[in-house]
């Protein structure tokens, strides 16, 4: 029990926030509302988990928000063109993976710092999405696409099912498989990883592809909710995804990844957002509280780590 709390330091504050909301509103604990929160958290957690891999490796990807847009546009355009839903979904994921591949290749083969490379792809992909749609909505009405958010296999909303599966897979991958350990190894000591013969470049590319894929999935989920795709979707999503991971503590670890932390981070952010909406609070407070939460959570974590070992290892730059 104590071990669990130590591994997931967000748990206690999360429970606290939930208790406060349960007391201060009469609707927070209703089934519908909790489901809302969890579905929203699930949608945020999936890309957050992919981003966890990236941050565990000591890098991050700013292009995911644009990927959301382009993937959504790809899927919806394909549907409009009369392609079957299955193909359209795969196309969106393919677009995401391709963007990730481009990121990975530019970073590893051309030696551009991840920050700039993904910033550039962010701009380029957004541009591509806008150029392709020419600012028009790609409106669809597709039950197949809708199933991604509205489907309820075994009575559980589909995003939650997806998130649970992804979480389990990611946890297993990062903690128990070679690929996951290699990702952490690179984050822990890149030079050593090269020296001991790990295929560092391939792993890095794979991680960016993973983030791209998750961006594609995120775009599908958003397009599924809104039944459209356009060049404006996903603006600023990169910050959301990174925030979740940072909140989950992975950024402080460097070379370790906390999948559970990321998931809790997503739940935390969505709980606060939902709570403030239930309390009819202006959006300004929402930003402030997320910011304060980030700082507080990480300050606590840093403090605890400082007590345990010497200086905290810190992700100061993604160079």
């Amino acid at each position, binding site marked *: 029990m104590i071990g669990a709390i130590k591994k997931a330091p967000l748990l206690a504050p999360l429970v606290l926030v939930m208790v406060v909301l349960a007391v201060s*509103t009469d*609707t927070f604990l*209703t089934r*519908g*509302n909790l489901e*809302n929160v969890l*579905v*929203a958290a699930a949608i945020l957690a999936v890309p957050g988990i992919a981003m966890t891999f990236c941050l565990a490796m000591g890098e991050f990807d700013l292009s995911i928000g644009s990927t959301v847009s382009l993937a959504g546009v790809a899927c919806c355009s394909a549907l409009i063109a009369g392609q079957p839903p299955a193909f359209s979904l795969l196309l969106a994921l393919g677009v995401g993976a391709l963007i990730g591949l481009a990121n990975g290749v530019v970073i590893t083969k051309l030696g551009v710092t991840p920050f700039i490379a993904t910033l550039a792809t962010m701009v380029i992909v957004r541009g591509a999405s*806008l150029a392709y749609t*020419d*600012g*028009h*909505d790609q*409106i669809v*009405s597709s039950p197949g696409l*809708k199933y991604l*958010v*509205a489907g309820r296999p075994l009575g559980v909303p589909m995003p939650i099912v997806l998130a649970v599966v992804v979480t389990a897979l990611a946890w297993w991958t990062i903690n128990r498989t070679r690929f996951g350990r290699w990702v952490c190894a690179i984050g822990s000591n890149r030079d050593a990883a090269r020296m001991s013969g790990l295929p560092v470049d391939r792993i890095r590319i794979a991680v960016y592809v993973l983030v791209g894929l998750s961006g594609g999935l995120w775009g599908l989920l*958003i397009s599924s*909710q*809104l*039944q*459209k795709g356009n*060049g*404006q*979707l*996903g*603006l600023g999503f990169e910050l959301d995804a990174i925030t979740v991971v940072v909140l989950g503590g992975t950024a402080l670890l460097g070379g370790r990844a906390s999948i559970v932390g990321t998931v809790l981070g997503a739940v935390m952010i969505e709980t606060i*957002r*939902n709570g403030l*909406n*239930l309390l*009819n609070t*202006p*959006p*300004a407070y929402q930003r402030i509280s997320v910011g304060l939460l980030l700082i507080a959570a990480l300050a606590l974590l840093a403090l605890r780590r400082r007590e345990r070992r010497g200086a905290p290892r810190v992700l100061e730059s993604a160079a």
Partner: protein
Amino acid sequence: MRTKKIASVALLGILALSACSDSGEPAADQKITVGFSVYDMQYEFFQKMAKGTQDAAAAKGWEVKLHDEKSDENEMVTGASALIDQGVDLLIISPFKPTALGPIIAKAKAENVPVIVNDIGGGGTPYDAIVISDNAGGGKLAAEFMDKQIQANGSASKNVASITCEPSATYAARRNAGFKEEIEARGYTVVAELSGNSKAEEGYKVMKDILAKNPDVAGVFSCNDPMGVAAANAIKDAGKSPVTDVVSVGFNADPEALTAIKGDLLAATVAQDPAAMGGLTVTLGEQALNKQPIQFSNAAEREVFNPVTLVDKTNVASIG
């Protein structure tokens, strides 16, 4: 170290030199040039507005210089000022931030260039005229329609909600204010007034939260169509109808809203006519150029209204 200094001086020199080699001849040709600075060409609404403006100007044989503000106030001031610098005879602007009109108007006044504002105004600046969709009036129309539709649905609830844009969007605030005033006058309570930051994604989430908080909510007004259609999608995903259960009204009459209305996915939207607005600005601009008096709808604010209409299932076929 020294070479760096020299080179940076040289760089400045080049910039300064090239600045001096100015062509600076006055625009002496007869043809009238109109500068049109537009909010953001990524949006269909403004694409239509630009088209309307260009068509009207072309009909008069004028030349149009288009500038895209790209939703950035710095770009707006820079680009619009640049249009004045390029010697346009008339400036038409649909400002990204109406509060940032000040420096542009000041510059235009200094150069004697009349300014016609399109769509969003305010900021207390002495532009020659502004063409506005009646945002507050549109909000009132939405409230009227919502009241009627709720009664037609036979709903007993007097609770409605509104989804607003970010606080900086003055036009949206006016829509919301108009809606709120009218709907409250009709005996309803606005139980939730939350911001979706103009974004569809957030509109969807906010609507879900509203439904969880007030399951009995009978109607929702969204200050733009992306959020309106997103909210309607959220209502549908929650197993309710956006027409007969929670009356959803948007604003703008974007194509997605019209499509949604046709498919019973949205109850109504408020139509503005951006192309007509664009045309109107050109007419007003000509009057200003010729120093003719302008017929204001609201002379105190130098406003010329372009009417808005409510679009629901009954008249959707005739729009757009």
